[in-house]
């Protein structure tokens, strides 16, 4: 394997931030039409930890992400990042949504470098970081292609590079692989794990997939619906990097079974 450029450049790469939340609650609207979307929930995420939120649709997973990044105001409770209470959107964050949300009028590299343009960071330095990320994510050669010229998996890789190029302290991912085919999903999951092991960003990973949650996380928080609450916390003690074929670990099926059982108990699944 050829030598990789180090991701940590002169910026002195930032480690992950801690995320704490107490009584985090979100209610949309007011009066009789108010919708209680989330909480109250508590979160205590250590710096560099990989935490997944898993639960059925409408359990407030995405809302949690928006509250933790300060993009939506909390209805009650508080969020602190690295001990600092959050009052406005924080910028030391990278966000990946289910849709790639790349700008169709910018090439892959220019989509990533938009971060540099808006933030006014050093161009050469950011370009070096972007190049290193492209290499890690298997995007070398795709720099000058427009999003419509890329496959779904590659677009999502570009959006991961965009979320990491400015060296954030945390990475928020809202079902990032939800729209990908099974083969791309396995590969990109592995690539993300390798990237995380190298950079140790704090990751809040939102997913519907038990396999992704167990395959990637240090800790899985299982949520229930209306209002969204955390019903169980499961620590995943599996060595890293985890194999593409998780079935190799007998523990994997034990963890998966536990989450599955919780879903069944919650009525997410109703089997006859």
């Amino acid at each position, binding site marked *: 394997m050829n030598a990789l450029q180090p991701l940590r450049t002169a910026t002195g790469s930032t480690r992950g931030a801690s995320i704490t939340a107490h009584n985090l609650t979100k209610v949309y609207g007011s009066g009789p039409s108010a919708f209680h979307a989330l909480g109250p929930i508590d979160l205590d995420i250590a710096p560099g930890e990989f935490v997944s939120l898993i639960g059925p649709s409408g359990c407030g997973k995405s809302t949690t992400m928006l509250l933790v990044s300060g993009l939506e105001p909390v209805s009650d409770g508080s969020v602190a990042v690295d001990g600092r209470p959050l009052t406005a959107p924080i910028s030391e964050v990278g966000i990946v949504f289910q*849709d790639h949300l790349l700008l169709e*009028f910018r090439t892959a590299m220019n989509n990533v470098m938009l971060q540099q343009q*808006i933030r006014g960071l050093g161009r050469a330095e950011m370009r070096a970081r972007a190049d290193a990320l492209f290499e890690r994510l298997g995007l070398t050669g795709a720099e000058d292609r427009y999003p419509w010229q890329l496959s779904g998996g590659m677009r999502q890789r570009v959006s991961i590079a965009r979320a990491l190029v400015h060296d954030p302290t945390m990475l928020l991912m809202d079902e990032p692989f939800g729209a990908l085919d099974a083969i791309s999903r396995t590969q990109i999951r592995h690539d993300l794990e390798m990237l995380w092991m190298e950079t140790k960003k704090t990751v809040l990973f939102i997913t519907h997939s038990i396999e992704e949650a167990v395959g990637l996380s240090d800790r899985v928080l299982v949520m229930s619906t209306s209002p969204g609450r955390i019903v169980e916390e499961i620590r995943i003690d599996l060595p890293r990097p985890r194999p593409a074929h998780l079935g190799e670990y007998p523990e994997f099926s034990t963890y998966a079974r536990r989450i599955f059982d919780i879903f069944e108990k919650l009525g997410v699944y109703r089997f006859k």
Partner: protein
Amino acid sequence: MIAAAARTGRAVLEPALWFAGLLVIWEGVVRLGEVPSFLLPAPSDFLARIAEDHARLAYHGAQTTKMIVYGFIAGAVPGLVLGYMIARWRLCEQLLYPLVVFIQGLPKITLAPLMLVWFGFSDFPKILLTALITFFPILVDAVAGFRSVDRRHYYLTRSTGASWWQTFRFIELPTAAPAIFSGFKITIVVAVTVVIVVEWLNSNNGLGYLVLRAMDSSDTTLIFAVLVVGSTIGVVLSYAVALAERWFLPWRRR
């Protein structure tokens, strides 16, 4: 490269040949049927007339073109600004939309005689009427364009700490640009008609005025000559808009 050039060549050549064929048939029918020229002049007649009267046609054509461009800009600028405001802020939508719909409902061309009373034979009525008529379609397309920005892009820009200007320049404007240009392409052709009609109603220059004079003297050949010049202006202007689109939106060259 050669294949592309050949394709462009064909795209120009084919309609040109069709057009030429049509003119030949026209010429033949007029000559063989001995149609009087005040009813239907032969293509050779009015093409010769263009060459003969080129100074006058060029002067009035230039006047008309100037009015089209001014009127179009005078309609496009407020159309884009208000379009952005309506798309972006609910309050603006509530305040401005009823007014905009009212303007759209107005049969604006009927204002032309009124403007003759108010402003006389000046350029102002032509510019104002063209602006009023081009304003609405441009506004509608601008609203649609600016609304097509995915709201999650605002999450991304806000977490990047982007300023209003950066959000506008990097995200909103380029996202809306294709819709805006499609509005431009339709409206520029409408503007040609509007200016000529207003010139016809109240003016002492421009192609519309020339048509009026030609009618006074049953000079059908001149009317056809004006028609050729007028449609040439329309074609050239819409081609200019298409060129501008290719220049500003290079990513659309698929």
